[in-house]
């Protein structure tokens, strides 16, 4: 029998994953022994501390790692791309804790809720540093399963159960497609490490490599909720607890898109001509479908779900450019996009708690005058989604468009501009509903004066700061984004 040598494990490099996972175990076990009324507070405190610690660990690693390195026998890769994505995920998790704090009901499940949130973030941190096909699939399943359960965690709500089941079935299908693709790529090249596959594709049977590439791309597009693989998105976003929807739309997207970028650029550099065109097609479908379907929505969560599909289009456009400028644009865009998305779902969450029912455009009437800070923030987030100047998405879109123009695809940038113009209608519709609906149409909030919710307001305030901050401090953030993608082997430039 062969001699076995245990891989040396660099524990500090794994710290963002381990801290959040350890926190999850603590929350899960300790809250069982606590009285129900303090479980939520305990879970929220531990989760916040863990997200902060994991984020700080990721920042420290980002500062230290000039060059990437493989860890745990090259199954995972530490580089600035992974660490930056971990910082985004942990930040989104921290804000989600604030948004969830006053969520109604489920006090006895609070331990599970925060434990699953931490585990999901931990899985995403693992996923973004995956460096072979096995860890890729493992990470994908790890965070997906947590999200399936979180979607259905409010078991009294039928829509939540429906959403959880749909997400489970469609998500598992996506994972299975990705796994099948991985098997084909492994079969063709005999390697599972990303770099080994890239080195082996030249002598491999091209049919299997291309089929594997297509299936891996489909699996990742499911997670990024890009059309035509978006069917689950509106129902799941609508049925899931609103704080979780915010977390999914920010953190899942970060994880899925960063991994898409890494896999396509590192594993399939020889097929770059193919996947850039495939992505351009997915981008066009996502932009068209997302924007057109969002126009007719009256439920705000559903509208934001379609908006998230169209933003998946913009984000994939950055990858479709297939150059370093595109990679930079993607990461910069994700900063602003995550903040805007968590923030807007936070505002929807508080309105939902006031009304004890779904938030529609009609039931937003007068919200801007009742809650000036939250209303103004929501207006800012809507301007942000459109891509207007006080928010960082403005520059994000600008860089995405310049990346595709740099590639010579001016037509794709024009598609993006048209999609942006169409999107003005439904984003502005929210602002109109909040500020310009006539008073007599305004819905009276149920149960007297609205409850104060400092944690949620603080989370919205942080989201506002990041949204505007990413615009004001664009230069340093672009530097960071450039460092993060510096090690990826882009085919050109």
């Amino acid at each position, binding site marked *: *029998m062969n*001699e*076995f040598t*245990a891989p040396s494990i660099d524990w500090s490099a794994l710290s963002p994953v381990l801290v959040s996972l350890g926190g999850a175990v603590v929350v*899960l076990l300790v809250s069982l*022994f606590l009285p129900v009324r303090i479980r939520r507070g305990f879970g929220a405190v531990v989760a916040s501390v863990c997200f902060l610690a994991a984020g700080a660990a990721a920042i420290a690693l980002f500062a230290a790692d000039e060059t990437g390195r493989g860890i745990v026998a090259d199954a995972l890769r530490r580089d600035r791309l992974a660490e930056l994505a971990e910082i985004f995920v942990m930040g989104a998790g921290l804000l989600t804790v604030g948004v969830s704090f006053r969520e109604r009901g489920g006090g006895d499940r609070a331990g599970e809720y925060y434990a699953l949130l931490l585990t999901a973030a931990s899985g995403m941190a693992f996923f973004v540093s995956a460096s072979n096909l096995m860890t890729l699939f493992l990470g994908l399943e790890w965070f997906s399963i947590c999200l399936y359960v979180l979607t259905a965690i409010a078991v009294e709500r039928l829509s939540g159960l429906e959403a959880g089941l749909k997400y489970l079935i469609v998500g598992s299908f996506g994972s299975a497609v990705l796994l099948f693709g991985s098997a084909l790529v492994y079969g063709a090249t005999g390697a599972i490490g990303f770099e080994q596959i890239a080195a082996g594709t030249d002598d491999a049977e091209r049919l299997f490599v291309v089929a594997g590439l297509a299936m891996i791309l489909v699996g990742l597009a499911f997670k990024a909720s890009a059309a035509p693989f978006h069917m689950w998105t509106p129902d799941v976003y609508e049925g899931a607890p609103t704080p979780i929807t915010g977390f999914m739309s920010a953190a899942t997207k970060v994880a899925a898109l960063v991994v898409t970028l890494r896999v396509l650029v590192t594993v399939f550099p020889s097929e770059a001509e193919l996947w850039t065109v495939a992505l351009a097609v997915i981008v066009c479908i996502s932009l068209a479908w997302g924007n057109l379907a969002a126009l007719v929505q009256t439920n705000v969560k559903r509208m934001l779900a379609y908006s998230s599909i169209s933003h998946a289009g913009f984000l994939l456009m950055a990858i479709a450019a297939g150059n370093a400028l595109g990679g930079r644009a993607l990461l910069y865009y994700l900063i602003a996009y995550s903040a805007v998305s968590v923030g807007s779902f936070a505002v929807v969450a508080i309105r939902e708690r006031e009304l004890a029912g779904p938030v529609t455009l009609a039931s937003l009437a007068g919200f801007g005058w009742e809650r000036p800070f939250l209303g103004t923030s929501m207006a800012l987030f809507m301007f942000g989604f459109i891509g207007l100047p006080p928010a960082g998405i403005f520059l994000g879109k600008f860089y995405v468009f310049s990346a595709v123009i740099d590639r010579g695809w001016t037509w794709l940038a024009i598609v993006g501009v048209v999609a942006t113009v169409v999107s003005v209608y439904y984003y502005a519709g929210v602002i109109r509903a909040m500020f310009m609906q006539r008073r007599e149409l305004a819905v009276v909030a149920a149960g007297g004066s609205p409850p104060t919710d400092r944690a949620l307001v603080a989370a919205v305030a942080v989201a506002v700061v990041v949204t505007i901050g990413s615009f004001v401090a664009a230069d340093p953030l672009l530097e960071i984004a450039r460092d993060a993608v510096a090690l990826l082997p882009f085919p050109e430039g």
Partner: protein
Amino acid sequence: MQGVLLAALDDWFPFLVYALFAAAIPGSMLLFSFALSTRRKERAPRAQRMPFESGVSTGPPKLQRFTVSFYLTAMLFIVFDIEIVFLYPVAVVLDVVGPFALAEFGFFIAILAIAYVYVWKRGALEWR
């Protein structure tokens, strides 16, 4: 030719023995139930003329309602059962891999223990 056959037999002999045993067990059950049966063929009451005297009634099965606890317990059993199966491969290579395997083994058991404590405290093992 003969050498090849012998070599194949060498490799597959344990499976041959296994297959013989696998066939012998159900075969002997059928055989002995006929050989040792004490019933008289003629004038036997109806119950005795059925293949198995004390078996399940041949009527249509009644619709039964299982308690939810049954499914929960069964699922938990499968989870822990399958996890325990993973211990076998570790046990086989323990002498090769050495203390690392033992440490991983312990860690794995610890994770199972956490899950067990969780399931227990959450009341999933109570029969309702």
